């Protein structure tokens, strides 16, 4: 265990928007090649934490290190996947162009896209199994009718966009909200596959999926509790294969140490 690198190291983090702290005394490490899930109630501070990790919000107290270095906004070390939304489904943009949005600002060239970039973008799409959509518009024509990508497909495109810069960490904010169960499972399967090479951090509500794929979980409700899921998984597989989410939540709540 000690030989692992710390992918993300958060120390003594406090954060408040106004008077009251939304995050208090947050300390945890994500090790390289972890599959970590962030759980917690709405308004518990999950999204705030993500924004802090990404550098969208300014640190107030404490520190966040990415691979033992303070975070740089422009670095491509973290690939970020936002929540799946239905906005701009009709936008005239090709899937490939969406991916290349992730290009580092300093390396962007004027006047269009370079061949290298395009190849890199197609490679990113291959990793999520979406390469056949590369040159299509996000709402493509089919039988004379314009169709949008399905929720699952859109989310894959967003994951590919995050993978574009070959990040070492993939950070996903509720990647499977608004997506049907089958597509959900497929996306987690893809993440599991990607996890062989990169660290994955997922904010999620899907407890059963979390338990199936993640190896660690943190529970955030203002304060944080940390769980190594490997022991818990064993316990559960002994108990029953169909554990209800409520039971799981209880368990996670109980062992808040």
């Amino acid at each position, binding site marked *: 265990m000690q030989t692992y690198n710390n992918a993300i190291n958060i120390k003594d983090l406090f954060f408040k928007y106004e008077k009251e702290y939304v995050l208090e005394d947050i300390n945890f490490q994500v090790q390289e090649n972890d599959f970590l899930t962030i759980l917690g109630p709405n308004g518990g501070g999950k999204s705030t934490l993500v924004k802090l990790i990404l550098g969208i919000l300014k640190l107030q107290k404490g520190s966040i290190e990415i691979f033992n270095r303070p975070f740089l906004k422009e670095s491509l070390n973290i690939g970020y996947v936002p929540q799946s939304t239905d906005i701009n489904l009709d936008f*005239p943009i090709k899937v490939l162009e969406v991916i290349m949005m992730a290009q580092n600002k300093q390396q962007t060239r004027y006047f269009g896209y370079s061949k290298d970039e395009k190849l890199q973008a197609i490679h990113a799409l291959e990793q999520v199994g979406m390469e056949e959509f590369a040159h299509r518009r996000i709402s493509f024509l089919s039988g004379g009718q314009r169709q949008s990508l399905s929720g*699952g497909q859109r989310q894959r495109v967003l994951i590919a966009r995050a993978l574009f810069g070959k990040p070492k960490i993939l950070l996903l904010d509720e990647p499977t909200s608004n997506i049907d169960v089958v597509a959900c499972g497929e996306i987690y399967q893809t993440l599991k596959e990607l996890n062989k090479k990169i660290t994955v951090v997922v904010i999620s509500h899907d407890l059963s999926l979390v338990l199936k794929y993640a190896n660690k979980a943190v529970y955030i409700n203002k304060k944080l509790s940390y769980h190594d899921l490997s022991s818990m998984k064993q316990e559960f597989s002994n108990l029953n294969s169909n554990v209800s989410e409520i039971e799981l939540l209880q368990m996670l709540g109980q062992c808040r140490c």
Partner: protein
Amino acid sequence: MLEALSYTFIQNAIISGVLVSIISGIIGSLIVVNRMVFLAGGIAHSAYGGIGVSIYFSLPMLLSTSVFSVIVALFISIITYKNRQKLDTIIGLTWAIGMSFGILLVDLTPGYNADLISYLFGSILAVNSSDIIFMAIILFLIIFILGLFYRDILAVSYDNSYAKIRGVKTRLFYTIILLMASLSIVIAIKIVGLILVIALLSIPTFIAEKFSDSLLGMMIHASLFSMFFTLMGLGISYTYDLSSGPSIILISSVSMIIVIIFQKLRKPKIFKKTN
């Protein structure tokens, strides 16, 4: 009809029609994908303040109206960037203030102003060579900015919050889009008038959207459609002695309706699942 082409004012009309079509195709696409149509309407109507200023102080119309609209656009951009929910209120405000200001200035101007109606409905046949130079400069500027920052502008338009995370100066590009829009609106007012400017910016774009796979494609298609409608409208207006602005807009609207009907007819009978 052909002998008409030898008149300078017809030549000017055709050249300016082509220039304005390209401008409105490009900027119309940006306005539509950014959902700024109402905003563009606000800028168009507040531009009337600029027209008032130009009549009252006897200044060149395009120049003073451009300056006025740019100021309005900057004002809107500064106030609304952080809280977009206020956007509607601010647009309504600038819309009304700009128009009232313009009309009062025209009232205060001594003498009768026959030109007034031409700003409401446009006067492509009254375009002179200095107008054309101004339009060409704006077109060049727009193409230059777009060539340089196409990716940033695309990113900001498609996914503003992600663009921000990736280090794109979203506020700057939001302002740039607004400024380009306000300049284009001023020019389009010259052709179709401020009442119809929104139609010129949005109808060709609406049709182009159906044929395009990318924003750039949409801009090119919209420019071509716009060119076609403008020249057709111009021809009809000349042949039947009708107002040019409404002729252009009616041609576009009829085409749009035809496209919509054609699309409905092509709709497959079986409902297909998206996934």
